[in-house]
């Protein structure tokens, strides 16, 4: 059976440039770059080149960039390190209600350790409440603020440059936008994840701007880098950056088509998130009376890989905190995220099969 993979927001298929770089560097990039012999010098050279290439795309300096074992690790290390270094400025972390759970877990840790956190809500389309944000970051004792560049669950793009304009150092979780949209300005800390842009899993990126206060929250920060994966990540980012404009336009048109067609062909469906000010490759919708897990499995049987924010598909039995914060329907939810290998035919087949799949599930529970 033909399989259409629509979950690039979790993990994007490896870009061909990343695959080539990965295979080449398995031969050439295995030594520890921190040692002093010839193989190590070669590894150091490769690592520095990768760091420089990724920093270029992010609009940062090479020395501001650190590789981490994942995007979650990067965002947690950035925020906990910033809070630790800015203790004297205050104990409060301000963050949006729709951050990635990695950031929310770090915020919980900060609160358990005696700090405080202020959560800023969003509107029905998923935009942060600007009045509440301004109020929160203007409060006493705010050390750091954190805002995701675009929601990983619904795609709404956030006003990062505006949010950074209140004198509080801002951490931007840019995992969803790096390699797809321009990197915003004004932030002090940035995190990203290579598997979201077509690099391999296991490579996160943390950028600490020169002059931004930060100290490692871990007892020891020095780990041997996964050099082949890092080189592949850099190759992928350079390649996707070169294709970004054309691919974003192509994928965004497909997302527009999905939004329009699903709304027209599936009754009682709620398409979530801003229709315009959004990620080019991602759409989320919820189908009333439909069990999200049943929908996900039915789609899987028909050869469609999607993810869901419904509680029945999560290990915690909690619905998506992003959907709940927006006041959106959380059950019957699926998210599609496209990538460079997604074809018009994949989308056509999905749009043709979805109405029948939803109708079948509704018929089973006696609602039409």
């Amino acid at each position: 059976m033909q399989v259409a993979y629509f979950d690039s927001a979790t993990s994007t298929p490896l870009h061909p440039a990343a695959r080539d770089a990965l295979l080449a560097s398995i031969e050439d990039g295995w030594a520890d770059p921190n040692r002093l012999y010839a193989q190590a010098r070669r590894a150091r050279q490769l690592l520095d080149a990768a760091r420089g290439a990724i920093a270029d795309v992010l609009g940062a300096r090479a020395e501001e960039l650190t590789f981490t074992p994942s995007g979650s690790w990067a965002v947690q290390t950035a925020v906990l390190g910033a809070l630790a270094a800015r203790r004297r400025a205050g104990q409060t972390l301000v963050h949006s209600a729709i951050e990635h759970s990695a950031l929310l877990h770090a915020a919980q840790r900060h609160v358990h350790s005696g700090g405080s956190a202020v959560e800023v809500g969003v509107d029905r389309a998923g935009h942060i409440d600007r009045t509440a944000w301004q109020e929160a970051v203007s409060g006493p004792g705010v050390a750091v603020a954190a805002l995701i560049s675009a929601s990983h669950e619904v795609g709404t793009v956030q006003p990062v440059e505006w949010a950074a304009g209140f004198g509080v150092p801002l951490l931007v979780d840019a995992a969803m936008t790096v390699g797809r949209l321009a990197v915003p300005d004004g932030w002090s800390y940035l995190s990203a994840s290579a598997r979201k842009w077509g690099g391999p899993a296991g490579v996160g990126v943390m950028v600490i701007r020169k002059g931004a206060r930060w100290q490692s929250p871990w007892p020891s920060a020095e780990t041997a880098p996964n050099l082949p994966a890092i080189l592949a990540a850099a190759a992928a980012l350079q390649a996707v950056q070169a294709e970004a404009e054309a691919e974003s336009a192509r994928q965004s048109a497909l997302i527009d088509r999905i939004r329009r067609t699903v709304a027209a062909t599936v009754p009682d469906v709620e398409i979530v998130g801003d229709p315009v000010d959004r990620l080019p490759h991602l759409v989320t919708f919820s189908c009333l009376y439909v069990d999200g897990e049943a929908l996900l499995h039915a789609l899987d049987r028909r050869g469609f890989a999607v993810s869901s924010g419904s509680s029945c598909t999560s290990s915690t039995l909690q619905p998506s905190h992003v959907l709940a914060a927006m006041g959106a329907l959380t059950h019957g939810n699926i998210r599609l995220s496209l990538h460079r290998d997604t074809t018009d035919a994949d989308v056509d087949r999905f749009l043709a099969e979805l109405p029948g799949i939803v109708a079948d599930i509704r018929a089973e529970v006696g609602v039409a």
Partner: protein
Amino acid sequence: MTTELNCLGQRCPLPVIALAKALPGLAVGDTIRVLADDPAAAADIPAWCRMRGQEYLGSPVPSAYDVRRVQ
């Protein structure tokens, strides 16, 4: 008149489906209290009211959600 719909122990979307099925039995202006302890009900019952044009009256106590039929 207020009726009560016991959906304790049911996972979403079952409480919302039960609410939708119970609605035709209510007169316009009547309210119904849905008892549901699935965490998703807190989001999904208000969202259902918005999508179906009914009035969500709030959650007076944990795991209870009041809805008024307005059409």
